[in-house]
C-alpha cells in the first residue's frame, strides 16, 4: 500500500530529474516531480484501498 506513495515519488522524481538534466532549471523540476508524485501516490492509494 505504502508502495504506491513511494512509487509515485520515485517515478515522478526521476522524470523531474530527467527534465532538469535536459533543461538545467536548477533542480526545480525534481522538487515539482517529487511533490506531484507524492500527491498522485496518495490519491492512488485512496482510490485503490479506500472505501
Amino acid at each position, binding site marked *: 500500500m505504502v508502495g504506491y506513495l513511494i512509487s509515485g515519488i520515485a517515478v*515522478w522524481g526521476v522524470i523531474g530529474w530527467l527534465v532538469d538534466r535536459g533543461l538545467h532549471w536548477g533542480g526545480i523540476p525534481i522538487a515539482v516531480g517529487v511533490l506531484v508524485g507524492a500527491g498522485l501516490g496518495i490519491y492512488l492509494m485512496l482510490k485503490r484501498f479506500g472505501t
Partner: protein
Amino acid sequence: MSRAALVHSGDIPWPPSVHEFFPPDLFGGNGPWFTKFTLLVWLAVALIIVFFLVAYRDPKMVPGKMQWIAESIYGFNRNDIARDVIGHEGIKFAPYLATLFTFIAVTNIFSIIPGIQISPNSHIAFPAMLAIITYVLYIYWGIRRHGFGKFVKQSLILPDVPWWLLPLLIVIEFAQVFVFRPITLALRLFANMFAGHIVLLVFTLGGFLIAGAGNWFIKPISVVSWALAILITFLEALICLLQAYVFVMLTSSYLQTSLAEEH
C-alpha cells in the same frame, strides 16, 4: 576454544564486510559453483521433503505430534493466507504458498543455527529468484484470467478517474505492478537477512575485540556485547519467520490483485 588464540593473534576479521556473503567454493574451484549457500539450499530442500514425507507417511485421524506440525503449517498457509487473502479460489495456490513459506522459513532459520549461522537469503541471488517466480506467477495468472489486454488495462487504469489525471497515474501504476513489486519483494527478504547477519557479527566479533583490549576496565564489557548477541539471536528467530510470512502474504496479495474481477 580456538577463538581465544584468535584474540591474541589480533586478526579478527574486523570490521565485518560484504566478503562474509561470498563464501569460497567448497571443492576448491575458482568459481562460486558449489559454495556453503548451495549446500544449504539443497539441505533445506532435503529437510522439507523428508519432514513432510515422514509426517504424512501414516496419517491418522487424531494426528501425532509430527503430523500435527505439518498440518498446522499447511493449514496456516491454506486457510489463513491463501483463502483469506485471495478468496475461495486461492486454495489452489496453497501448495505453492506452503512450499514457499517452508523454504524461506528453513533457509532463514539457518542464519541462527550454531555452526551454520548464515542464510542463503542474505545473498541477493536467492531472494531474487524467489521473487521472479512469484512475478511470473501473478502475471501469468492475470493474463490467463483476463487476457493480456484486459489484464494490462485493469492493472494500469483505475475506474472513474478524471481523464487528464490518467496519464500521470498510469506511469506510477506501471512502475508499481511491473517493476517495483518483484524488486521490493526480493530486496525486503535479502536486506533483512543481510542486516541480521551483520548485526550478529558486529556484536559477537566486537565482544572478542573488546576482550582483547589492553585495558582491564574495558575487557568485562565484552560480556555485555555477547549477551546482546544472544538476545539479538532470539530477535532474529522472530524476524526469520516473520519475513517468510511477509513474503508469502505479499505473493498472495499480488495474486489476488491479478485475479480480482474489477476494482
